[in-house]
């Protein structure tokens, strides 16, 4: 069943629609999931959709995106789809465990849910509701219930599918898990994909999330991921976003970390209409650490919004935020970093940094690194810079015979390299390195990786720079 949602009073219509008896939400027959959904809907009714008058949405205006008439796809689209035919990862020697979502549905051929020999569970979240009720009741909706974000409540109310990853205690997943989120539809789509990641004690996982779109219509993706990290677990997480200019991607992640767990999350935004990456991290056990990085290269009318909230709830935790971006043309950006150090969280170390290069006087960045500290024995720092390319360095490079245009690219690349160097998977690092270079040279189109090769090639992104080779 496909249902069109007219934007006239979008909030009311979304509520009305979700109550329709015609829609069979997964887990509707399990009291736990039905209860979570019901509460979320009530919460959404109360909070509603975001608007720029809300402090945390200042700088990102979704009103235009809300003007589109979207379709909600309630028919599972993932069954019997050949991932290989849809998406071919072009990273050489990058052996990954590849899973995909198509229009928000988990893609599978031979069953929606797998339990691997090491006990790891990977597959469709909707299927896991009945197959793994223990995991669902212990974790699902736990972190989102504590959020007062309207779009998160809407996601919980509308979640149809997504991915579940469960890594049992003491399991190190050797292969990198690559999750590709594809959109392929002639319609304007609104999606609410929902993911759940659970790492047991001393479990280790590397997860790469790629957001690609091959869409002729306009998409609004409101993805929510809950991540639970038990004692001494580690997650190495990457988000690679290369989307068309008429898509809106709201990517909200909630992390809860127990004692000694280590999180690294790195978001690389290369193209997209409106992208908002929101990471809420609760450091809920001693000696846990969270490194949150981001790189964004935006031009034309693209908009990027990175928001990080780190809650230092326990002593001796460490958090580090570093976000760097280059904005060209009329591109706009927002960085919001909020670190909360609670009264008992002594010996906290928390650092925040946001560096920006604006290439034109029309590009803007609104950056707000913010510390809120109630403990007295802490080491915290925050800072932001907004600037142009360093004139001294420009002259140095040009004095070697390198053209002004190439010198600009070299310096932008050098600026971005600090984030690229944080990538710990060598093959992925090499690939992203190439993509960033191509992006800076104006050669990376959003169709670059896709094998669908549809005719609507996005106009090539261009930093108004042309050069032969770096």
């Amino acid at each position, binding site marked *: 069943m496909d249902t069109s949602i007219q934007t006239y009073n979008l909030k009311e219509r979304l509520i009305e629609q979700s109550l329709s008896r015609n829609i069979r939400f997964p887990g509707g027959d399990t009291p736990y999931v039905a209860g979570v959904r019901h509460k979320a809907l009530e919460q959404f009714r109360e909070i509603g959709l975001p608007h720029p008058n809300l402090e945390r949405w200042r700088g990102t205006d979704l009103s235009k995106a809300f003007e589109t008439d979207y379709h909600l796809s309630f028919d599972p689209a993932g069954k019997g789809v050949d991932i290989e035919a849809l998406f071919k990862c072009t990273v050489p020697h990058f052996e990954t465990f590849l899973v995909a979502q198509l229009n928000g549905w988990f893609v599978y051929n031979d069953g929606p849910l797998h339990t691997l020999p090491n006990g790891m569970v990977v597959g469709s979240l909707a299927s896991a509701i009945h197959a793994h009720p223990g995991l669902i009741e212990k974790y699902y909706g736990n972190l989102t219930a504590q959020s007062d974000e309207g779009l998160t409540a809407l996601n919980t109310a509308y979640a149809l599918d997504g991915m579940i990853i469960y890594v049992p205690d003491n399991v190190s997943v050797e292969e990198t898990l690559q999750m590709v989120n594809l959109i392929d539809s002639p319609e304007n789509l609104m999606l609410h994909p929902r993911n759940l990641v659970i790492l047991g004690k001393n479990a280790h996982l590397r997860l790469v999330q790629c957001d690609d779109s091959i869409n002729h219509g306009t998409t609004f993706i409101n993805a929510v991921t809950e991540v639970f990290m038990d004692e001494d677990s580690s997650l190495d997480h990457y988000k690679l976003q290369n989307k068309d200019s008429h898509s809106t991607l709201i990517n909200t992640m909630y992390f809860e970390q127990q004692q000694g767990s280590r999180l690294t999350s790195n978001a690389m935004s290369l193209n997209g209409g409106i992208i908002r990456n929101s990471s809420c991290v609760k450091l809920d056990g001693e000696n846990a650490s969270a490194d949150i990085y981001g790189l964004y290269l935006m031009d034309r009318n693209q908009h990027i919004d990175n928001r990080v909230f780190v809650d230092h709830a326990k002593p001796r935790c460490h958090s580090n935020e570093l976000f760097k971006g280059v904005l060209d043309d009329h591109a706009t950006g927002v960085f919001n970093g909020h670190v909360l150090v609670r009264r008992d969280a002594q010996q906290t170390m928390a650092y925040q940094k946001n560096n920006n290069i604006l290439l034109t006087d029309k590009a803007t960045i609104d950056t707000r690194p913010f510390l809120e500290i109630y403990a007295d024995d802490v080491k915290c720092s925050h800072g932001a810079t907004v600037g142009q390319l360093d004139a001294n360095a420009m002259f140095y490079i040009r004095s070697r015979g390198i053209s002004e245009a190439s010198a600009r690219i070299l310096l932008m690349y050098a600026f971005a390299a600090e984030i690229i160097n944080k990538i710990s998977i060598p093959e992925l690092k090499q690939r992203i390195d190439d993509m960033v270079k191509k992006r800076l040279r104006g050669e990376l189109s959003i169709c670059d990786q896709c094998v669908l090769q549809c005719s609507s090639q996005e106009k090539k992104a261009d930093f108004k720079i042309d050069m032969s080779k*770096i």
Partner: protein
Amino acid sequence: MLKIKNLSVAIKGKEILKGINLEVNPGEVHAIMGPNGTGKSTLAYVIGGREGYEVTSGEITYKGMNLLELSPEERACEGIFLGFQYPVEIPGVSITSFLRTAINEQRKYQGLDPVPPAEFLAMMEENKKLLDLQDKLANRSVNEGFSGGEKKKNEIFQMAMLQPSLAILDETDSGLDIDALRVVATGVNNLRRPDNSAIVITHYQRLLDYIIPDVVHVLYDGRIVKSGGKEMALELEEKGYEWIKNSL
């Protein structure tokens, strides 16, 4: 090679160089000495083409061209090399790819094809050996995390790779130990040919023990106040810059 006539230069309205006259012929090495803040680096930057310097009067001709009309990269492609007093760090860009880019852009300007990879690598090896540089250096990012001495050696390495006709070294010797100083001198001396020239800007006489200049100039308060042979450097070392100040 290089002719500077009555050159006056101001930065933000403040006059730094006040009528410089200098002629460097092919094959010559000139040393420019002088106390801090007298305009030595300004002179190097103006020849290199850095923005923010206003030429209020005078002219610079290089190989018969009006140098002031050329961009910094055009000057480099015409054979001018500027060794920086404070080399800039370029994270993420290896010395190898930086130099290959520079050489190929210069070759493109000269109407030549890109340097064949084997030839480029051979050049790298030869110059690394000549300057006694470690093998891993070439894979490191340009100047990133380099010590002061390594940065200066890297300047000389770049110069050796780019084979300029006119090298200008701006206090390349400052802060170097005696071994690094020898490396710098080796680089300059190796480039010494009848058709090449160099201007060595230095604070101390020390470097001139290794690079024997043809002419020594003293720059003071924006003017060349004294020129002489290589012996003058020794005299300066002995008597100090007070000697110049008092004689004015």
